[in-house]
């Protein structure tokens, strides 16, 4: 293939990709016109969870740092948004920005210990850190309401004085923020820093040898991922209007990591699909299989590891790979 032909092909693929993305967004926008309030509120939660999964993908898929403590920053964002909603203002963008900042700061305060490690040690440290934050949410009763959680958060407003009570409006707000954050994450992965992240994932020693301060790179990614997770937390409470220590438990952290793994890490969209699947299955399990959710969830983990080693995105990747080989020289 000549350079010009390659560029043209890439241009075509990019246009096709953009058209596809636009279609998906338009479909998502149109959904409230067809669906009732219950499925729409479920979709809102899925979008918030998908954003959490995308933020974890930045860390796990792009930078090679699998974290079992990512729910902590999601929870910090959720608590921040809920506290602001209860005590200060129902204005959702204010809650969002505060949650973003809180998630980033929490990641900044706790992450510097973790980013000096890698591999299994990182997994273990993030798990410990996440669980400690979880305990904090449980025991700091005066602020968090303890194990009962925070109730009584008023409906959000986007424009002053107009509470969004209808599920569809809340959904549209959440969708807008989701698309915005997703676009930002996508942009970061395509930037030189995105290349730097992938370099750290592929070969950290080599990165240091060409002059990268890899611990700092990892720290920056950790803080960005924490901030976006915080934003996802604020989206979550915008819908549920309730937050409890369960929202930042180890189980959520494991679920979101499962979403990244079965979705296919390092693709952003794969983990979002994974998040949708994980949340749907989890909701279905907990409502139909009385109480035996964890059992089936555990089996799902085992099955996912054995059957989908590279996730949905991996399945697609294999197909694309075969196709390019067929059309190759």
């Amino acid at each position, binding site marked *: 293939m000549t350079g010009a032909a390659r560029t043209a092909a890439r241009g075509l693929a990019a246009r096709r990709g953009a058209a596809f993305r636009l279609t998906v967004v338009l479909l998502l926008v149109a959904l409230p016109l067809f669906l009732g309030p219950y499925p729409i509120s479920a979709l809102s939660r899925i979008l918030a969870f998908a954003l959490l999964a995308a933020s974890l993908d930045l860390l796990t898929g792009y930078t090679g740092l699998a974290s079992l403590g990512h729910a902590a920053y999601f929870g910090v964002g959720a608590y921040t948004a809920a506290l602001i909603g209860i005590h200060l203002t129902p204005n959702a963008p204010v809650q969002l920005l505060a949650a973003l900042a809180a998630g980033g700061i929490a990641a900044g305060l706790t992450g510097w210990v973790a980013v000096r490690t890698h591999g299994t040690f990182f997994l*273990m440290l993030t798990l410990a*850190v996440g*669980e400690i934050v979880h305990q904090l949410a449980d025991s700091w009763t005066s602020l968090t309401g303890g194990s009962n959680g925070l109730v009584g958060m008023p409906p959000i407003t986007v424009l002053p004085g107009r509470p969004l009570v209808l599920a569809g409006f809340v959904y549209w707000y959440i969708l807008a923020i989701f698309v915005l954050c997703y676009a930002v994450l996508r942009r970061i992965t395509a930037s030189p820093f995105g290349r730097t992240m992938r370099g750290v994932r592929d070969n950290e020693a080599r990165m240091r040898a060409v002059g990268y301060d890899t611990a700092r790179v990892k720290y920056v990614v950790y803080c960005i991922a924490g901030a976006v997770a915080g934003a996802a937390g604020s989206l979550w409470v915008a819908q549920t209007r309730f937050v409890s220590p369960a929202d930042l438990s180890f189980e959520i952290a494991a679920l979101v990591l499962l979403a990244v793994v079965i979705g296919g890490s390092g693709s952003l969209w794969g983990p979002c699909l994974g998040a949708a699947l994980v949340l749907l299955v989890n909701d279905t399990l907990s409502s139909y299989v009385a109480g035996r959710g964890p059992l089936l969830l555990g089996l799902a983990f*085992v099955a996912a590891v054995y059957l989908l080693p590279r996730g949905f995105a991996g399945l697609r990747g294999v197909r694309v790979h075969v196709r390019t080989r067929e059309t190759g020289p």
Partner: protein
Amino acid sequence: MIAWLDANLVSILNGVAFGLLLFTLAVGLSLIFGMMDVLNLSHGALYLVGAYAAYRVVGEAGGSLGAFLLALGVAGVLGLAAGALLAGITQPLARRGHLHQALLTLGVALVVADLLSALFGDEVHSVAAPAGLRGSVRVLGHGYPAYRLFVIGVGLVLAALVYLLVERSRAGAVIRATVADRDMVQAIGVDTRKVLVGVFAFGTLLATCGGVLGGPILGAQPGLDDTVLILGLVIVVIGGLGSVKGAFFGALLIGQIQVLGVTLLPEYASFLLFGTMALILTLRPAGLAGTAARTAAPGSSG
């Protein structure tokens, strides 16, 4: 100082007992981690298996010392079997990396924990100390439960045994060499597979037996698996990878922080836990007793 010690003696002893209990869990985690780079997230669930075994065999009313030993035996067999099984299912995934192995053990943990709550319900079960260890003894003028002293004793003996096994025996030499440089040990032709399975089974055995031992202190209930797993992980982090000594001192430290810290500063318990971990990792990145071998040693010298 002496007055303070006197006032807090019971708490301090509780911390030692709790710490040694955690040691049984942490040392297995640490060795499995050091040997195989596998984070065994089912370790807490296996502890819980032991705790429920104690509940079933010894019971809430309390049984004889024989029943207690029987519970230990049952838990030991279960632990060995679980370890062999876990080693068997995680090894084929070794090439796919630590994340898949960890998720697999997490799946196992969820399954085991849920089966336990299906079998035993969600309520809190207590386990009585075996006959002969039920009363209290006087320690420096304070009444103290005999069973906890027993746990301290058993924990110390266990720590010494594990230390001798790992640091002084022939199998231990392979274990230590593998922890320091896995590639090299494989490169010089030592068949590490048997040792790997052995260490895995030994680690899970310690976890289930720890559950029996801890039954009369912590009881058996859903959620306990996560609590002990996290504390075990923190101990491994601060103790250092694959180090028996590190796990021992780390466990004693965390035991004190959990018991004494919660008694003195209940509001700040989780800050204390994170603070300790952060402080130790800042001062000694490889943990209390860790060497920087894994990260610093060259693969081979030219």
